[in-house]
């Protein structure tokens, strides 16, 4: 387990990825790491507005001679992300990472897993894909979005897939790119056609995760889902982010998660 640190990080690069999404490169002289599926708490704004940090999945960690750079992919949805989109390059931000439990890559490495990302759910999935590729693990990557313009980092995804000889499946709800329909439809299609996945790693909007969970239980596959619960602290002390498990326990998604096995989440979608 990598020790967490609360680090001042410099905003060294920002790239627009889509009309609503952008990437951030945050640099620190310190050495710091993270596992795919883990996240960081980033302070947005330099005062009291907004008051709380915002949780963001780690999209990548690159150790270099001059220290570490952490990559985030962000969608602008409100105050904090709007500030991130406008913060001046060179600004110093505060990032607490790595937090939470990520995907079980060792288990995924033993089979040909499916990686499934919906919209801004890509960051942890992309991070997992690149780590699996480093281990020469073959996998398929499903990437869905509402419309073609919101399909993020497709070239990069293709490049990763090419190194392992898997398949990259793109889908859009409105049919403007890739296969038409939900990303989970594409998953079901292939599984009906006989492609077997023993494990699925997924992140995206809750309805998508629910569909993945349903498919997994039918197909007898293990699905690891990265959830997004509103968080105040990210470190397990506020109890704001709890998820109800099948056994009725309410556990913090910032510590026991954000990645959970779908089988433990029955209660979440029953209600």
């Amino acid at each position, binding site marked *: 387990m990598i020790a967490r640190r609360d680090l001042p990080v410099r905003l060294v690069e920002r790239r627009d990825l889509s009309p609503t999404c952008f990437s951030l490169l945050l640099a620190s002289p310190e050495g710091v790491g993270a596992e795919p599926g883990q996240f960081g708490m980033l302070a947005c704004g330099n005062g*009291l507005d907004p*008051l*709380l940090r915002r949780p963001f999945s780690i999209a990548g960690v690159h150790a270099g001679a001059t220290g570490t750079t952490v990559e985030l992919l962000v969608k602008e949805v409100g105050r904090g992300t709007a500030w991130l989109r406008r913060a001046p390059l060179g600004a110093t931000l505060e990032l607490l990472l790595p937090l939470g439990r990520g995907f079980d890559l060792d288990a995924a490495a033993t089979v040909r897993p499916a990686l499934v990302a919906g919209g801004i759910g890509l960051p942890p999935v992309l991070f997992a894909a690149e780590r699996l590729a480093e281990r020469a693990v073959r996998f398929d990557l499903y990437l869905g979005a509402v419309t073609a313009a919101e399909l993020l980092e497709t070239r990069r995804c293709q490049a990763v897939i090419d190194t392992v000889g898997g398949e990259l499946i793109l889908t859009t709800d409105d049919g403007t790119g890739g296969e038409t329909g939900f990303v989970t439809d594409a998953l079901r299609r292939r599984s009906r056609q006989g492609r077997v996945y023993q494990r699925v790693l997924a992140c995206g909007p809750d309805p998508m995760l629910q569909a993945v969970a349903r498919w997994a239980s039918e197909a007898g596959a293990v699905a690891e889902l990265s959830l997004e619960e*509103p968080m*105040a602290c990210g470190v*397990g002390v*506020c109890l*704001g982010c709890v998820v109800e498990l099948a056994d009725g326990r309410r556990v913090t998604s910032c510590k026991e998660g954000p990645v959970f096995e779908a089988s433990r989440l029955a209660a979440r979608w029953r209600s």
Partner: protein
Amino acid sequence: MVEFLTSVGALRLANPILAASGTFGYGLDLCDLCPPERLGAVVSKGLSPAPRAGNPTPRIVETAAGMINAIGLQNIGVEAFCREAAPELARRGATVIVNVFGERPHAYREVIERCELVDSIAGYELNVSCPNVDHGGMEFGHDPKQLAALTALCRGATRRPLWVKLSPNAPHLIATAQAAVDGGADALTLINTLRAIAIDPIRRKPVLATGYGGLSGPAIKPVALRMVWEVHRSLPAVPVVGIGGIESGRDAIEFLLAGASAVQVGTAIFRHPSAPLRILSEIEAFCSSQGVREVRSLVGGLQWP
């Protein structure tokens, strides 16, 4: 060198900066970022006799310079705390105040009786003011008579320092404070959260699953400061522990001047897990620059017009 040593009534503390209940877990979650033994004391998450599952989610929502929470006092129960957390906190040399919660008066006493078996627990803070639980909490804190009785019941179970955490939503602040003192409280903690709601205009529903919640953070500081001062002014002999929106050493000092013997840091920990340590160094800097040798000497130093 600034002297931080202080005391709340008979209880001596290494410094006046405490971690607030419900914002520091059971004291051990942030050992790497904010070692509990470096604080004046840590106040546990509210503990009930049996574990509680708390409220459904969403439980938290951010507001202007604040947040509303309706955790519903989810906790592992006093037994688990005493067995699992207390020993390690003792080993570290942390001073521990147990925040006590029950749905019936006797439940408060049960929690205390269990904690009495643990030598290392320094004292108790009765949460009679949680604004987001249907049974318990609220009532005790709002009715002086009930509060006096509850406090007396708990007083009967321990010789240790007994604090009562007052509700800012109570109809009569001073009468409530007096009732707690009459019941045998050694000190008063104030304030807990202000009853509040947030609305999602698209869904036309409250943001929180339970509707009502408690407002905390810098937004409430001016009200908390006022209540600390009013209680200190009318009950000067009663030690007060101040809390509400403290983010900086300057904030903490304002509470000390208003009459608080010590202060608690809550919501600020969420943005900065190490906030209490930063606050301590900011207090040191302030005192040095102002020629204050003992932080204690600031307590109640406010000159009212």
